[in-house]
């Protein structure tokens, strides 16, 4: 691995990697040029409110909650893709102002550019983040990350020629190629079948072990969260979703997906999560 000169080497770390303070997001309806009905007061949809959270360096944190609870909104805010309405996001002691290459983002629908080949998709990220790098450098680095996800042979294929799992592996390679110290994943395995999903979860764990990154994973799968995370953040149902609980998952690593299900501690946390999710989902379903 080459060194990361861009990263701050802070010897005295009195702050967490990622800190959220009273974070809130309200989506305002777009105001029409002529709007007779709503004069003056702009009413909006409050997705999340008063989110306070600390995530330590190199930990794996899952955010779980009923659908529509604002999980993705939270991730978009951390990624800097949207600006919060209130509160602030602090990374390594610095409030963020927008997106940055210190955070790699992975989307549910892979978000590969269909007009670029696999390797070109990664090169696009590299060229954007490191404009000074030479062509050969970029190519070599792109190849290295494709090799890491086991797709070197598919480097000249277009996304449409790849399976869903392969596409997501390319997206992971793309996100990691820019050398982020945080990986933000928005239900990355949600669209994959169960087998591919298990395979990619294992893959992700081994990448996480090797690459030293903080991972924030949005998921609606309790098993996935339990298998992967150090900490699980539970969100209440939206609108105005809050963090209702933070659960530390102190199960030993490496975790074996077959054996872990026998662990009484695992079952205890799983029951607790299921109860919570059921309650919150019921709240969603009975309101609408």
């Amino acid at each position, binding site marked *: 691995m080459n060194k990361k000169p861009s990263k701050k080497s802070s010897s005295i770390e009195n702050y967490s990697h990622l800190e959220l303070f009273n974070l809130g997001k309200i989506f305002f309806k777009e105001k029409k040029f002529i709007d007779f009905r709503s004069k003056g007061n702009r009413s909006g949809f409050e997705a999340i409110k008063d989110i306070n959270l600390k995530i330590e360096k190199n930990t794996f944190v899952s955010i779980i909650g009923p659908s529509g609870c604002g999980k993705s909104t939270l991730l978009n805010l951390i990624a*800097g893709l949207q600006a919060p309405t209130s509160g602030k996001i602090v990374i390594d002691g610095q409030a963020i102002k927008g*997106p*940055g290459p210190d955070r790699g*983002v992975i989307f549910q629908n892979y*978000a590969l*550019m*269909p*007009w670029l080949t696999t390797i070109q998709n990664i090169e696009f990220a590299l060229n*954007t983040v490191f404009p000074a790098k030479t062509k050969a450098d970029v190519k070599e680095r792109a190849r290295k990350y494709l090799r890491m996800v086991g797709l070197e042979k598919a480097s000249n294929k*277009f996304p449409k020629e790849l399976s869903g799992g392969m596409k997501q592996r390319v997206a992971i390679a793309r996100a990691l190629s820019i050398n982020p110290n945080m990986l933000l994943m928005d239900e990355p395995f949600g669209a994959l079948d169960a087998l591919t999903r298990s395979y990619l979860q294992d893959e992700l764990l081994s990448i996480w072990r090797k690459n030293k990154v903080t991972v924030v994973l949005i998921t609606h799968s309790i098993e996935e969260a339990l298998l992967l995370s150090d900490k699980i953040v539970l969100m209440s149902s939206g609108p105005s979703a809050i963090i209702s609980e933070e659960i530390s998952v102190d199960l030993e690593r490496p975790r074996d997906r077959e054996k872990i299900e026998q662990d009484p501690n695992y079952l205890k946390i799983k029951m607790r999560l299921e109860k919570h999710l059921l309650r919150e989902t019921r709240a969603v379903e009975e309101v609408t």
Partner: protein
Amino acid sequence: MNKAISTRLTFAVAILSLLIFIILWQVIAQQGLLVKNFPGSFKTIGSLIWWVSDPFFDNGPNDLGIGTNLLISLRRVLIGYSLAVLVAVPLGVLMGMSKLAQSSLNPYVQLLKPVSPLAWLPVGLFVFRNSEITGIFVIFITSIWPTLINTAFGVASINPDYLRVSKSLGASKSTTIRRVILPAIMPNILAGMRISMGTAWLVIVAAEMLLGTGIGYFIWNEWNNLSLENIFVAIIIIGFTGFILDQFFGFLQDKFDYSI
């Protein structure tokens, strides 16, 4: 059914229907069933062969080979059309990206789009005092709308994931436009360009009847000569050229179709 036989059959049916059409046309014309002196298919085919065998002669502006006239028309279309694309694509991207540009330009687009481009012909003649430039100007006006509207629509309906990736990498606006938006909307741009080309090829014939020279003027000239078979020759050649142009864009569209 076997596929090879099926294609061969389709081909045979096509040839047969063409033969029937030619014979029917000849019979109807010969018997004077339509009007007197209506040219038959044999006479028209004879003219076609005559025009095509020496397409590029030049005996003054009222007696040009059909190939020369065709090239004149094509040149006008290509210049006016290219200028239109050069204006329409950036303007369309701007309209698709900016609400302000959209709301300030869209009324003009909606107002001008339904107007026949030929209405601009006298304006062009008055301003440019030159039939050549006026022809190009009319084609420019014709070609601009479909490409503009398709481009703007393409930008407005671009997959937001691409933009989010670009934004999350911290890409500049110009990088996003060049490396993400333009390639993403290539199918929309080409669809617009195909419609623009089709319309431009329709309009040039009408415009040239009033401008002198070109394939449209050829038709007008042959009407003055009362030579209907030469008009049919021109119709066949215009149709064939339009078909080739359209196929060219169809080919480009297939190249840039990301979905297959």
